[in-house]
């Protein structure tokens, strides 16, 4: 996003974008001074819709992987994020992410952005798109990130407590990270960390948070002795397909233009996803003798996750390498998880945490501009900061939410299934005559 503008293709598009936006407001907001680039605006509107499409995609991906008694509860984890983060984003999260740094740069704040009141007629001077479009595009990232975490503790979390958890997590973990990496005065941005579309902010943060929450909550009842097979891999495949499609908005939209950088990001995205998927089933074929649909879907995700931070800085060959490497490492991470025996139900950490880290760190070896040791160190630091911050804050949040509201579902609720206990519904009612 903004990170890529300063570093991605070596063209400094101006690092004072939000300062610029707010000074335009201070001067009375003269929209006629800045023209709207209708091409860029059209693509950004499309991208915004594409990123939102990833949320029902994720709901289907995760929903298909759980047992049939938890399908509605699991899909609702994604859907409620659209409601909760959707409201929070407009209310204060945009101000916290893209306002000027406060409290020593912990997060941002700009009272003009509360309820988006101050951007009603703002055209962004650097991007020539209405700021509403930028704000809505960014808001979709804030929706999908906490929804990704839900995969780690699927099938055993109380619905109400989950809602409270993601709201607090969004405010205390996502918003500060987003500010650090993407706002013009964020410290990771100023350090020069490359995170084109959210490898650090979205995938590393959600993956590590999921791991912490899953370890805190403990395994599902019966794990790993009982078989917990996916209830509907057809739905999971559809979800993976929607995620792939939506990811073009996620990555190519993060160029915040409609031009060369957009095309570069889109191409890298396609190449990495294809290479990741192919590598995963090749590995499976070699290791287990069969190529599974779930493996192909996981490979798509591993490739997409790994190219997310890198889409603006790598060529297609590098993107394919990143996708393939991420597939290998994520495959190994899931095998290791089974060895270690912790219950990351749907491998939120194994794919997003691990794949995001692979992408964020290894991208320096495939950069258009060539390898740079300095950049390598910066990437390590940024990933380390994101991991440490997300892990510690998540631990605090899960402990508090658990003590106050009870985060873990009761054994009875877990046996009965989240669908009936928390929603009074069943995903597949037609299986029973009535």
């Amino acid at each position, binding site marked *: 996003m903004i990170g890529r503008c300063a570093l991605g293709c070596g063209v400094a598009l101006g690092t004072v974008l939000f300062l610029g936006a707010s000074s335009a407001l201070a001067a009375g907001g003269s929209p006629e001074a800045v023209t709207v680039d209708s091409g860029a605006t059209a693509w950004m509107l499309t991208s915004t819709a594409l990123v939102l499409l990833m949320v029902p995609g994720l709901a289907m991906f995760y929903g298909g992987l759980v047992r049939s*008694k938890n399908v509605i509860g699991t899909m609702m984890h994604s859907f409620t994020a659209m409601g909760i983060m959707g409201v929070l984003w407009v209310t204060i999260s945009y101000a916290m992410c893209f306002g000027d740094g406060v409290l020593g740069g912990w997060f941002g704040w700009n009272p003009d952005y509360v309820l988006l009141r101050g951007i009603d007629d703002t055209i962004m001077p650097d991007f020539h798109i209405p700021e509403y479009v930028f704000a809505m595009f960014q808001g979709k990232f804030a929706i999908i990130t906490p929804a990704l975490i839900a995969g780690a503790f699927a099938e055993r979390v109380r619905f109400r407590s989950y809602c409270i958890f993601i709201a607090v997590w969004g405010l205390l973990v996502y918003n500060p990270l987003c500010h650090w990496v993407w706002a013009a005065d964020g410290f990771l941005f100023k350090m020069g960390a490359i995170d084109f579309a959210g490898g650090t902010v979205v995938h590393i943060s959600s993956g590590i948070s999921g791991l912490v929450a899953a370890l805190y909550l403990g395994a599902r*009842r*019966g794990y790993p002795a*009982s078989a917990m097979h996916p209830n509907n891999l057809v739905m999971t495949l559809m979800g993976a397909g929607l995620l792939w499609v939506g990811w073009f908005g996620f990555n190519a939209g993060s160029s915040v233009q409609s031009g060369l950088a957009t095309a570069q990001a889109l191409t890298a995205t396609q190449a990495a996803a294809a290479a990741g998927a192919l590598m995963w089933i090749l590995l499976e074929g070699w290791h287990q003798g069969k190529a599974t649909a779930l493996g192909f879907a996981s490979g798509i995700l591993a490739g997409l996750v790994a190219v997310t931070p890198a889409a603006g800085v790598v060529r297609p060959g590098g993107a394919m390498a990143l996708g393939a490497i991420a597939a290998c490492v994520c495959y190994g991470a899931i095998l290791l998880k089974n060895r270690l025996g912790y219950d990351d139900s749907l491998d939120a950490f194994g794919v997003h945490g691990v794949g995001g880290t692979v992408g964020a760190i290894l991208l320096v070896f495939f950069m258009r501009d060539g390898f740079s040791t300095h950049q390598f160190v910066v990437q390590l630091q940024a990933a380390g900061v994101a991991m440490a911050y997300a892990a510690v804050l998540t631990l605090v949040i899960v402990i508090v939410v658990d003590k106050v509201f009870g985060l873990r579902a009761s054994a*009875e609720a877990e*046996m*009965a*299934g989240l669908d*009936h206990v928390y929603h*009074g519904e*069943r995903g597949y009612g037609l*299986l*029973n*005559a*009535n």
Partner: protein
Amino acid sequence: MKLITAIIRENVLDRVREKLLAAEIYRITVTRVSGRGQQMSEEIYRGQRVVPGLNPKMRLDIACNDEFVEPCVNAILEGARTDGGRVGDGKILITPLEDIIRIRTGERGGKAI
């Protein structure tokens, strides 16, 4: 030989199976069924109270030799009774079994279980 058929709540299936495995009863057939006993479970559908005509339940079918009948029944009772016993916990039906044939070998009777 007896055929033990149990109709139980869906949510206790895991627990019943764990108890059965502990009693060394491994061979079992499970089906989803719908039915109606004494239980009237109200549900809310779009804000309106409705009583489903048929309740979803799980049905277990276990064929066993006579000495396994009591352990099997006890395991099901332990696993399927909720909160000290509530309407809707289900039933256990025991019927005599005339014969059992293992398709693979053609063996008959108790050793075919």
